[in-house]
């Protein structure tokens, strides 16, 4: 039964680990020193959160947190596809960072009401630290939105590119119904997704950035909502959102970019499991 709780923790840990790995790719390469330090520090926070979530899940399923983090095959990871997308340019990096951290705040706000004591405490703790990530992403978005037209155009394009992937952060998690019933996950993913969409488009509107990405969003939301409805009803299986449009991560479907990331991220562990330094 409480394996549903472990499944929730692992999916969220996978998000944190994979996006943390992407953020860490800016170490030494960011446009200026403050951003180099900022992305390195944010990466360290995210990977720290992943470690705490893997520890929570590992205590339930009887697995070592390192083995959960680095000892699984790519198809066993449950991170959303958004997290594994390559960093691309600075505009995409910022757009993804902002969307991810906005979504995470919506999710943590819910988990801070979890019926599970350990998850509730961890979510409360994480949220206090994540505040700095939101502040960082929000400051950048505002600066670019109020800046010259090239920056505005590029950030708007990047947001449009990342938005559908971001909605797929709220694809139903494995064994979610059990977790919702037990109160471990106080709100269902569909509910969190509309809360996120509302908050994200509201803030973009205030910044004067295009919100017609919301049209794509509504369409995608509609699609996912009706497919989960179909799942409950007897009938042919609905088509699943493709990895290309950001879906499938919660069921272990990943892009080719994830394979490459996994290769690098798990190499040391695979060469020498249990290595310490």
């Amino acid at each position, binding site marked *: 039964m409480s394996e549903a709780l472990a499944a929730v923790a692992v999916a969220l840990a996978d998000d944190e680990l994979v996006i943390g790995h992407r953020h860490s790719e800016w170490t030494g390469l960011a446009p200026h020193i403050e951003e180099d*330090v900022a992305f390195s520090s944010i990466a360290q926070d995210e990977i720290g*959160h992943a470690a705490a979530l893997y520890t929570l899940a590992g205590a339930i399923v009887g697995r070592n947190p390192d083995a959960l983090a680095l000892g699984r095959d790519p198809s066993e990871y449950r991170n959303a596809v958004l997290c594994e997308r390559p960093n691309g340019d600075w505009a995409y990096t910022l757009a993804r960072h902002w969307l991810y951290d906005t979504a995470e705040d919506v999710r943590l706000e819910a988990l801070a009401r979890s019926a599970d004591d350990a998850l509730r405490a961890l979510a409360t703790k994480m949220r206090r630290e994540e505040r700095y990530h939101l502040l960082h992403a929000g400051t950048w978005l505002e600066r670019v939105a109020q800046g010259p037209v090239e920056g505005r155009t590029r950030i708007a394009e990047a947001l449009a590119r990342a938005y559908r992937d971001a909605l797929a952060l709220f694809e139903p998690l494995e064994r979610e119904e059990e977790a919702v019933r037990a109160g471990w996950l106080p709100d269902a993913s569909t509910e969190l997704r509309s809360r996120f969409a509302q908050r994200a488009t509201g803030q973009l509107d205030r910044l004067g950035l295009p919100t017609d990405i919301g049209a794509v969003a509504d369409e995608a939301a509609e699609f996912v909502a009706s497919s989960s409805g179909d799942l409950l009803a007897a009938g042919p299986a609905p088509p699943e959102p493709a990895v290309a449009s950001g879906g499938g991560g919660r069921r272990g479907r990943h892009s080719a970019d994830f394979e490459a990331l996994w290769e690098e991220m798990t190499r040391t562990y695979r060469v020498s499991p249990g290595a310490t330094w």
Partner: protein
Amino acid sequence: MTQVRADDRIAARVWEALAHVADPEIPAVSVIDMGMVERVDVAGGRVRVVVLPTFTGCPAVPQIEADVARAAQAVEGVVEARVEMSFDPPWTTDRITPDGRRRLRDFGLAPPEDGVPVLIASIGLPDRARCPFCGSRATRAESMFGPTPCRAVFYCDACRNPFEQFKPV
């Protein structure tokens, strides 16, 4: 009754011993100064220490866990010492003691400002810091990210020194 009194004495000695366990990254302060020790339970000489990590991703946590266990184990009368890391309640910068704040300042690290509430819901810039070198408040936040997860980078316009602040959480 005698056992209870003996356990109480052991607990008091453990608290005292932990006041000498330094934060590995900021050796000027102890885990007690930082408010990281939530409780010390003793039953029949068996000790359980509950420690709250400051930042979740702090790489010093395993070191702190080992140092606390070693210090508790060395206390007279202790049969066994166990350390539990917990996020319940969450550690916040409000837990840093007045002594801890003074020692941070002497170390050259601005403590989080007293009386500045850390609201989770508001995403305001916690940009208030007093320069640990000259005491001026004419300072500005350069970056909320520094060399460790718990440090922000500030600049003092009065004495023209960059300095770091222990980030309020």
